């Protein structure tokens, strides 16, 4: 330990703070309740985090490119309702691709507004949050959507099935995270996402087509949302119109917990996955300790602010803000 100065220690804490916090939480909860560390419990937590996680993967791209997406929650409600409705009308084989196309069309519309018309992404997606919610209600007429034959359909495999003992939602989450993680970390496109988010003007002058990169980020985000809608629909086989309400902020919380800066240019898929798992395990751990579900809101609040604070404190080298 002799080589480690106080400064180095601070740097390590800040860089890997989120991983360290994760480990501390896991150990703490394991001591508090031995059921927490049970493989079944861990599998259950990951499984129920999968839907939030899949959405967070896409939002990671959008946030790294320097934009926001507040519409993912109501977009997820939309895709869930659409796929459930179409399931009975045109069969699951056709319903799934149709739903993906419809959801990604919405994503393309947002992408067009933000990337090509250069409108502020916060307001655009805020407007779309409201607009897509209205669209969903108009589509369904405000009624809950249910599949008629819940026992006989193979559609439930996405949300409830198993493959080699691993639940399918987890498989989809892991595969999607791996593919998108590679896309972001190892391809020219991934690097251009960082470049555009880090310094948009410099990226444009280096010959990157900024609008196209931002547009693609929204397409990826809407693809992830459609996947999440599919998982949700298949898990419950019936849904309210507001199933995704409020998820946009939980998703954003997970992405921020993972260390992505809202200014763009930083964050990774792996860290977002950690952020999602932290939220999931905190929720589960608090429940197992015997606390109510809403205690997690308060805990999440403290954790988000501490995480972001430590992150920027490490960057500026001072704990307290220099604002006078």
């Amino acid at each position, binding site marked *: 330990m002799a080589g480690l100065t106080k400064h180095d220690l601070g740097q390590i804490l800040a860089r890997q703070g989120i991983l360290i916090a994760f480990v501390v939480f896991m150990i703490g909860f394991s001591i508090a309740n031995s059921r927490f560390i049970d493989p079944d419990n861990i599998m259950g937590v990951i499984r129920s985090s999968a839907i939030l996680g899949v959405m967070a993967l896409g939002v990671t791209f959008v946030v790294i490119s320097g934009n926001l997406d507040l519409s993912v929650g109501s977009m997820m409600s939309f895709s869930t309702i659409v796929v459930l409705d179409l399931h009975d009308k045109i069969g699951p084989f056709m319903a799934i691709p149709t739903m993906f196309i419809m959801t990604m069309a919405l994503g393309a519309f947002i992408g067009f507004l933000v990337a090509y*018309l250069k409108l502020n992404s916060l307001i655009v997606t805020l407007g779309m949050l409201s*607009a897509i*919610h209205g669209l969903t*209600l*108009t589509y369904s007429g405000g009624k809950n959507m249910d599949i008629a034959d819940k026992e006989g359909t193979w559609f439930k495999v996405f949300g409830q099935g198993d493959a080699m003992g691993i639940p399918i939602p987890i498989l989809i989450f892991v595969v999607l995270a791996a593919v998108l993680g590679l896309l972001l970390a190892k391809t020219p496109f991934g690097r251009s996402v960082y470049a555009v988010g880090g310094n948009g003007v410099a990226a444009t002058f280096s010959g990157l087509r900024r609008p196209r990169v931002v547009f693609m980020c929204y397409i990826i985000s809407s693809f992830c949302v459609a996947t999440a809608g599919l998982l949700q629909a298949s898990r419950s086989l019936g849904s309210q119109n507001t199933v995704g309400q409020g998820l946009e*902020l939980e998703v954003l919380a997970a992405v921020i917990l993972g260390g992505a800066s809202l200014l763009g240019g930083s964050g990774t898929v792996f860290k977002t996955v950690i952020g999602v798992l932290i939220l999931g395990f905190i929720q589960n751990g608090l429940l197992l300790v015997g606390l*109510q579900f809403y205690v997690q809101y308060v805990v999440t609040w403290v954790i*988000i602010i501490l995480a972001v604070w430590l992150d920027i404190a490490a960057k500026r080298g001072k704990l307290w803000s220099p*604002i*006078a």
Partner: protein
Amino acid sequence: MKSGTLSTLLSRGAIWGFIVLELIFFTVAGEFFSLSEKAFMDVDNMLLLFKQSAPIGIIAMGMTIIMVNGNIDLSVGAIYALCAIVLLDSMTWPMFAGLGDMVIPVSWALALIVGVALGALNGFIVWKTGVDAFIVTLGSMLGYRGLVFMYNGEQPTSHLNWTLVDFAEAQFLGLHTPTWFLLVVTVVIWFIMNKTVHGRNAYAIGDNRTAAVNAGIRVGPHMMINFMIIGFLAALSAVVFYSESGSVNPNDGELYELWVITAVVLGGTKLTGGAGSIISTFGGVLAIQLLRKGLSHIGADTETVNLVIGLILIAVLFLDRQLNIKGKEELKV
């Protein structure tokens, strides 16, 4: 410069033009589609419109200051709910049992103090940690909502005080009590923003923070005061509304932040800070409420309101950008 002045006039007056358009549209469309006998521009209907604008409108005034400052506050809905619970619950506390109706001002004061305190906490974190207000208030939106639930579980908190209900439903010079609160808040905040040093500093900080710091403005405390103002107004909004309704669910006030931000943006306040006007925000609040009322008047489903407001928000943003491009042609990169 002529086109510049024109675009300023256009963007200043746009919201009022939009309101007039809405009025004309709903009056004409109402003749054909409305099921009710009454005209849309009926006096009672318009008075009700003002009254219903009050909860969102009071908070929107505070949000305008916050956004002129270049910040944002997502936690207003949760503050609103928490203050409502404090208001209703404190009236039943045994220690106030001997006060009779004098409990009302005490409960009001308690609720308002809680609102200011919650806002101050947000502002203090923004000031001292330097974390972006968006993230700070996103966190406290969750945290304060958690406190709401911890207060009384998932049960609604109810207490009806008839003196209070009479007061909240009263009409003075034809206007309802909530309308008066909205008007007074609008005037006071307008005065602060236009006639005081604090208001000028708010614009200066939002326009160019570095320059404001160099000019000797203490940015941190200034922003904290603004967060206390919006906390106070969120509490005031809750106090006015729940004095009448007397029952609060733990989910109340959810999505209020979105409605409030929509109203403020419709009024032409920039997210980047430095520009915005209280009067236009007032227009934005009225425009939204008119739209909600109008659509239900002509028999449109309530769900259409969300769709229309969302699309209008985007359209306003687009038009605003077009106008600004004309004004700032020479600044284009």
